[in-house]
């Protein structure tokens, strides 16, 4: 251990430290570092990364971001949160982004439980974190309740669980109308509610029990399979016996695939409508070997459906770049380009407090919607998205013979005198075996 005591060791160590900090400081002056955190081995994380890459490429191609008088390039840093399997991995990834990579901003996160932990770390370090995956209302309730602590968190995508539920009921209502018109069903439409056993879906059971009768529908049963169930043929057998005409689904996990596949293979005479996160992905068709046909799910994008003038150029550019229709976790694109970069250019600084103060008051268009951050009943900032016509509504899409087709909003009447139809939506298709069963 003589070398430890030698005269050379200390200067070498000091030199290494100086070089390290100098390199960090040099990098900091040159570029805006944005961490993209998500489950990168899974499609949700890959889409988050793809969205971010597209945003960075577009911004850098224009010369970068104008921060005051200086042009700064975007540098993305990927962090695999592995959050489906380990929350600890997710928090470590966020810590690493902030302490080692010294990112200015973070976008991403998917699983609610992990995003809560990530939110804590980012906010403690005063790093703006735009969530692009988790829907829990509580993420933004925290902002309202403890503003000084959590003001650095913004919701990017999707809109919150409460709004997701509202939208899902609208999709069920529209489907029921189609069934009544096309199959001549006169009595109350029978609905089976199938929700994975997960916390986010628990509150849905009383909501469904209370709301469906008001919508002129009858709830014939509630089934709660495991989120990771791989065989649901027993549940489907019971659902068929219940006489359900609509299966109102609430799936965020893998169970959405076997459920859709087996329901179609068994030709259950009922429409599947609701939330099926797996069905939002391009891989769904292959994963179900084409048996996901006629499944309707809430979604953000479908080819040729235009929420506003920005939608189509984005979707087409994304398809050209990555060969598939974007999913909602590509919201990293607008989070970087429209939320962060536009705000930075407006105020000419990277100061997080100034960015927060400006961003929370902005109203701006993004490819899937117009963003406005709402305040709660007490007038406190929540940094949550405004849901409703003219703002974020999402769309509903149906798998029709291998194509993911937008089917809602189509003459949606959210309020008296208001009717919303997005350009490019098509009519809902009823499975032929259901038509056969009801038109005997």
């Amino acid at each position, binding site marked *: 251990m003589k070398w430890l005591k030698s005269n050379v060791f200390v200067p070498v160590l000091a030199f290494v430290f100086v070089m390290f900090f100098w390199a960090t400081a040099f990098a900091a002056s040159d570029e805006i570092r944005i961490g993209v955190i998500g489950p990168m081995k899974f499609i949700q994380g890959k889409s988050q990364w793809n969205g971010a890459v597209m945003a960075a490429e577009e911004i850098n191609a224009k010369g970068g971001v104008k921060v005051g008088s200086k042009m700064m390039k975007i540098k993305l840093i990927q962090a695999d949160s592995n959050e489906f399997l380990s929350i600890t991995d997710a928090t470590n990834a966020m810590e690493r982004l902030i302490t080692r990579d010294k990112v200015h901003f973070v976008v991403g996160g998917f699983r609610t439980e992990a995003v809560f932990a990530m939110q804590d770390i980012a906010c403690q370090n005063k790093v703006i974190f735009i969530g692009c995956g988790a829907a829990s209302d509580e993420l933004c309730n925290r902002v309202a309740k403890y503003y000084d602590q959590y003001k650095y968190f913004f919701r990017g995508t999707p809109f919150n669980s409460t709004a997701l539920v509202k939208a899902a009921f609208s999709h069920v209502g529209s489907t029921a109308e189609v069934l009544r018109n096309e199959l001549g069903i006169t009595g109350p439409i029978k609905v089976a509610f199938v929700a994975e*056993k997960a916390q986010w879906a628990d509150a849905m059971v009383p909501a469904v029990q209370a709301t469906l009768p008001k919508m002129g529908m009858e709830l014939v049963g509630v089934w709660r399979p495991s989120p990771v169930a*791989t065989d649901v*043929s*027993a549940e489907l057998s019971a659902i068929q*016996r219940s006489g359900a005409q609509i299966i109102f689904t609430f799936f965020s996990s893998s169970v959405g695939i076997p459920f859709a596949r*087996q329901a179609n*293979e*068994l030709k259950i005479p009922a429409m599947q409508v609701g939330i099926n996160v797996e069905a939002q992905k391009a891989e769904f068709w292959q994963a179900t070997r084409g048996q996901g046909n006629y499944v309707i799910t809430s979604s953000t994008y479908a080819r040729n459906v235009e929420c506003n003038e920005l939608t189509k150029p984005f979707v087409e550019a994304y398809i050209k770049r990555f060969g598939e229709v974007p999913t909602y976790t590509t919201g990293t694109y607008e989070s970087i380009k429209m939320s962060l970069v536009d705000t930075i250019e407006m105020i000419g600084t990277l100061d997080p407090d100034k960015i927060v103060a400006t961003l929370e008051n902005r109203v701006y268009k993004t490819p899937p919607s117009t963003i406005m951050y709402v305040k709660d009943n007490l007038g406190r900032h929540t940094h949550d998205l405004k849901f409703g016509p003219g703002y974020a509504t999402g769309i509903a899409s149906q798998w029709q013979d291998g194509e993911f087709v937008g089917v809602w909003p189509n003459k949606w009447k959210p309020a008296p005198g208001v009717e919303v139809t997005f350009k490019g939506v098509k009519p809902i298709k009823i499975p032929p075996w259901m038509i056969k069963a009801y038109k005997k």
Partner: protein
Amino acid sequence: MSIILDIIVMGLIKGSIYALLAISFSLIFGVARIVNIAHTAFYMVAAYCIYTVTNYMGWSAVPAMFVAVILSVILGMVIYKVFLNPIREHEGAVLIATMAIAMVFQEVMTLFFSGSFLSVPNLIDGYFIIFGVKVFYQQLLTLCAAALVMVILMIFLFKTKLGLALRSTAQDREVANLMGINESKVAMITMGIAIGLAGFAGAIVVPLEILEPHMWATPLVMMMAVVVLGGLGSLKGSFVGAYIMGFTEAMVVFLSPQGAFLKISVALLIMIIVLLIRPEGLFGVYFEEER
């Protein structure tokens, strides 16, 4: 009445799926005393083989199944020879090694196929209706395959010389060795047969499920529960245990739809209750006798 029919039909089907997996696990434990935690990982490997062969090479499902079974057997035997045989006498080490092998398979599958959910084609498409219950032909195939595997294994074990060697080794390894049976070779052959059956189970069962790199974990829990319930190392016990688990699951789904997610937990609870009453399992030997 309709619920009872549902439970009978679905219980038989689920039971057959578990039986297919548990019989081969029980065989390797009975003969070689190897608790192969990687057993369902081989089932996963077979499933991914079928996916690769059908999707990328354009083969149909039946030849893909043969390729998958053969590749699984080769892989299983190589792993046995290289990793397990040298540590076979140390049961704890074998347990950990097979667990590590399963994790390696999982990570390799994640590397090549990512975490995406995939499907493989049915060997037979379509369904039929029995007592008003829709049943996939693939499920019927599983039921028949479980029965067939059981019959073939029984004939093999009780009517062939190799079967006799396997049973002798299972009863007493040292005496079998003294009688001129190459115990190590018998263990390797048993490993090959067991992995082949796991691959076969993968080929038959996986079209009913979805492929993903963690797909080996849940069947492993159920399979071990079946084997423990039936009695460690008892083929008959595994067969009966599988159907008990299958019927329990079906009963939970049909009698308590809102508690459908509890089906595995309830099945495991039944196992615990049986073990409290009969610690050796339904058809197992007393531990004291075994020692």
